[in-house]
């Protein structure tokens, strides 16, 4: 809880710092604040988790773990932001503040115990992101991304809300425990049409938010149009939070009536995987490829929800870490390359292996992790997902996933091929110190989680 309070107060502090022109203090204070918030969260690890504030929130281990991931990823991303926002406009403090507001929403999203808070969390996050997507005011792509994201986000909110309303109409409460108990007495033997419709609509709404097919169509454009750093934030932290919220809802409330929604979700999962992977193949822009790959990763993470079990939380947790960290590396390198070459095509990575061996190495690790090669974190994530699905005997789903994993090699290796095996005349990229720290840290996390995942894989 202290985490949330701190993260809510911090952005206000930043806004006022910005007013009083303390620009140099922004980043250190943000990062220190976030780390303190993280520490406060971890300090509650062993505390008994009861629903607090009239059953609105519950800071259980699930919540703390996911808060931890999102805060850490945010810290990493913010460390890349040194000088980034300054190039866009003068309102730097605001950008930091909005990112932190989004993070506050995310913390709510991962620790809600009442649908009200789910809604509030999602919206605090989304509204902040609408702004962030459009911070390049004079760039039409950024404008378009903001508008698209905004309209689609609002649209999906409508579905989510209608779903919540119908569930409320059936159950008479927004409390997760009450809904769970109600679902227990209304299994498929005594079905309730309104309740089930509500679940379906919530799936639609949440799938919009996490960018699962067929509700994904906004994702590529928004990810491409938004400033790269914001895209990094959206595709890592936000996605993680979306899945945490998704999982929390379904694992707490709807396990007993899984036969109702699993077929739908399974279809969505498979569609997401295939659409994400196959379209990613045809991209010429690295950034757009990452956008589609994020769709396909959404598909993998949906596995955990389709095959809901005791381990689902863990699986999503590990997967989210792996995916977030690897994506952060990818986006960090992309930012650097973009600065040099001015575009984000695969060709701009040519010869990077020679000119910047370190950069190429970490990006390779990231790509291997995204592709799910063993000894990287991505493999552990995929392994857990597959085990979960396998435990539920959804073998043909695994087969589809495997085929998709193979397809994904093509596009992840394109950048590796470009970096090492295609040569180009290029000067060495100057890597700021912050970037080095972030890249090295992320690469180390990727490898450690890949080689020895024991210390995070049964946290929750």
């Amino acid at each position: 809880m202290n985490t949330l309070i701190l993260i809510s107060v911090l952005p206000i502090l930043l806004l006022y710092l910005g007013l009083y022109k303390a620009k140099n203090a922004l980043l250190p204070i943000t990062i220190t604040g976030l780390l303190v918030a993280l520490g406060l969260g971890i300090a509650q690890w062993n505390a008994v988790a009861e629903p607090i504030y009239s059953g609105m929130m519950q800071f259980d281990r699930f919540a703390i773990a996911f808060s931890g991931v999102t805060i850490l990823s945010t810290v990493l991303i913010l460390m890349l932001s040194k000088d980034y926002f300054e190039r866009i406009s003068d309102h730097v403090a605001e950008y930091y503040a909005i990112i932190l507001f989004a993070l506050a929403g995310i913390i709510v999203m991962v620790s809600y115990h009442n649908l009200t808070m789910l809604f509030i969390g999602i919206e605090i996050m989304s509204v902040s992101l609408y702004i962030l997507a459009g911070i390049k005011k004079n760039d039409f792509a950024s404008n378009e991304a903001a508008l698209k994201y905004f309209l689609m986000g609002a649209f999906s909110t409508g579905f989510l809300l209608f779903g919540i309303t119908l569930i409320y109409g059936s159950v008479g409460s927004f409390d997760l425990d009450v809904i769970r108990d109600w679902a227990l007495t209304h299994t498929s033997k005594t079905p309730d049409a309104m309740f089930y419709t509500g679940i379906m609509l919530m799936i639609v709404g949440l799938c919009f938010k996490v960018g699962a097919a067929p509700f994904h169509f906004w994702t590529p454009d928004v990810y491409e149009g938004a400033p790269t750093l914001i895209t990094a934030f959206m595709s890592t932290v936000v996605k993680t939070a979306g899945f945490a919220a998704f999982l929390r809802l379904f694992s707490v409330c709807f396990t007993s009536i899984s036969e109702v929604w699993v077929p739908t979700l399974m279809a969505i999962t498979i569609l997401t995987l295939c659409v994400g992977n196959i379209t990613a193949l045809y991209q010429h822009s690295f950034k757009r490829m990452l956008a589609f790959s994020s769709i396909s990763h959404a598909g993998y993470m949906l596995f955990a929800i389709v095959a809901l079990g005791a381990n689902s939380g863990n699986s999503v947790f590990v997967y989210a870490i792996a995916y977030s960290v690897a994506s952060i590396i990818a986006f960090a390198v992309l930012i650097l390359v973009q600065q040099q070459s001015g575009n984000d095509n695969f060709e701009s990575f040519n010869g990077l292996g020679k000119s910047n061996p370190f950069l190429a190495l970490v990006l390779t690790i990231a790509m291997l992790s995204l592709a799910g090669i063993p000894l990287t974190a991505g493999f552990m994530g995929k392994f857990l997902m597959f085990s979960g699905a396998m435990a539920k005997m959804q073998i043909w789903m695994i087969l589809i996933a495997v085929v998709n994993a193979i397809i994904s090699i093509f596009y992840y290796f394109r950048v590796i091929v470009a970096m090492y095996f295609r040569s180009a005349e290029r000067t060495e990229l100057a890597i700021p110190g912050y970037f080095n720290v972030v890249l090295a840290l992320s690469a180390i996390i990727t490898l450690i989680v890949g080689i020895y995942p024991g210390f995070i894989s049964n946290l929750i």
Partner: protein
Amino acid sequence: MTVSLLIFLPLLAALALVFIKNESAKYVALFFAVAELALSAYFITQYHPDASVQFAVDQAWIPQFGIYFSAGLDGINIIPVLLCTLMVPIIILTTFKHEYNTNSNIFYALILFMQSGMLVVFTALDAFLFYVGWEAALIPIYFISALWGGENRIKVTLKFFIYTFAGSLFMLAAIIYLYTQNPGKTFDIHELYGLLLTPKAQGWIFWAFFLAFAIKMPIFPFHTWQPDTYTESPSAGTMMLSGIMLKMGIFGVIRWLIPMAPQGFNEYYPYAITLSVVGIVYASIIAFRQKDGKRLVAYSSIAHVGLIAAAIFAWNVNGVQGAMIQMLNHAINVVGLFFVWDIISRKLNTRDLGQLGGIAKNSPWFAVSFLIITLGTVALPLTNGFIGEFLLLNGVYYYNIRLAVVAGTTIILGGVYMLRMYKSVMQGPTNDLTITFTDITGSERLVMVIICALIIVIGIYPQPILHLSEASVTNLIDLVNKKTGPIGAVSAIPAH
């Protein structure tokens, strides 16, 4: 003393090599490889040839998922381990005359890293560990081939990577399935052996594993990546691939595929054998038509591996024992052959059979060693190939005489095209190009001597090697047969 020493020594060496950026990298690499060989020699001398697992290591790795760092030596993997530790120093030695570009230390690091991965594959007693090693060995060879390979390397190596990765993902699915079916929730090989699965599930598992191993070996029709990759890779990479890596597939069949899904195996093995035999004939015929020497060797490798596979799928002691020793032999021979072509192409800058000829005249060392290797490959008695192929054919024969006859043609065909190759390269008149060929010296000569010595020694006295694996092989075959009844056309086995 456990096998973890064996696994981690090359890994450490690889890490060390990353930081050695000067000329001495190759010596350091060789030193570590030899040290590794010495270590494995020590293990083998200490090894008691019974069916037990020795020098085992069993460390908790990710215990909450039942994943253990569990490895050890037994009769099944001792020969692959031997060949792996034996071939790596030889392969490193073959590179001494090469000038790989400035990052040669990375090259050697990748080789040693790959060795470590392969040793994991061979020694693993935990399915998860096995899979990790399997993939870990793949990444370095991809980079070796793609960074130091020929013209078309990018496309070819990606194809290779995706093929093998695809296969292994299916294997991963099968492994996870086994894991979820295991009441003990571990990946322990012995627990998995003991599972009682439905025939249908076993069928799935059989094909999933088969795909992975068939691609790796490769068995027809999953071989299409192989000739291109072998041709485009740098010689050392080709040697690693053909000499050691494809043994991972063969080893996997013996260790994982058949014991994990005995009933699936019992149901589907005729297809597997048929594919193998088709591959033998197919590859032999293609090999005939090859102009490029390296490519010819690549196809001949498919043919030989097909025979090994066929014998394994026949699943009797002779066949599997033959496979064991032939793994080693094939490694030695094929490394020798690729080295021959490495030397030729380095000195003459061509591998086209039509442009060569008469090299034997002024390079006796080269001619003699090439001849010995060729003879070993065509399985002349008293060379190493003979004993292996004999046992293999014997194994197939027990299964089905007609198939054995078809498979046996490989020896004849192999003899023909190998000798034709030798002839067109070494004999006949010299031309403008081949007149410039100088005899092998120094490290090249050393490699050739070692290889020829191995060919002859094993050819004359294979018994100690066969003895190493015999107990375990018998034990494993019994284990499977207990579950399924004797495999295949039992009636065809004559009473001894």
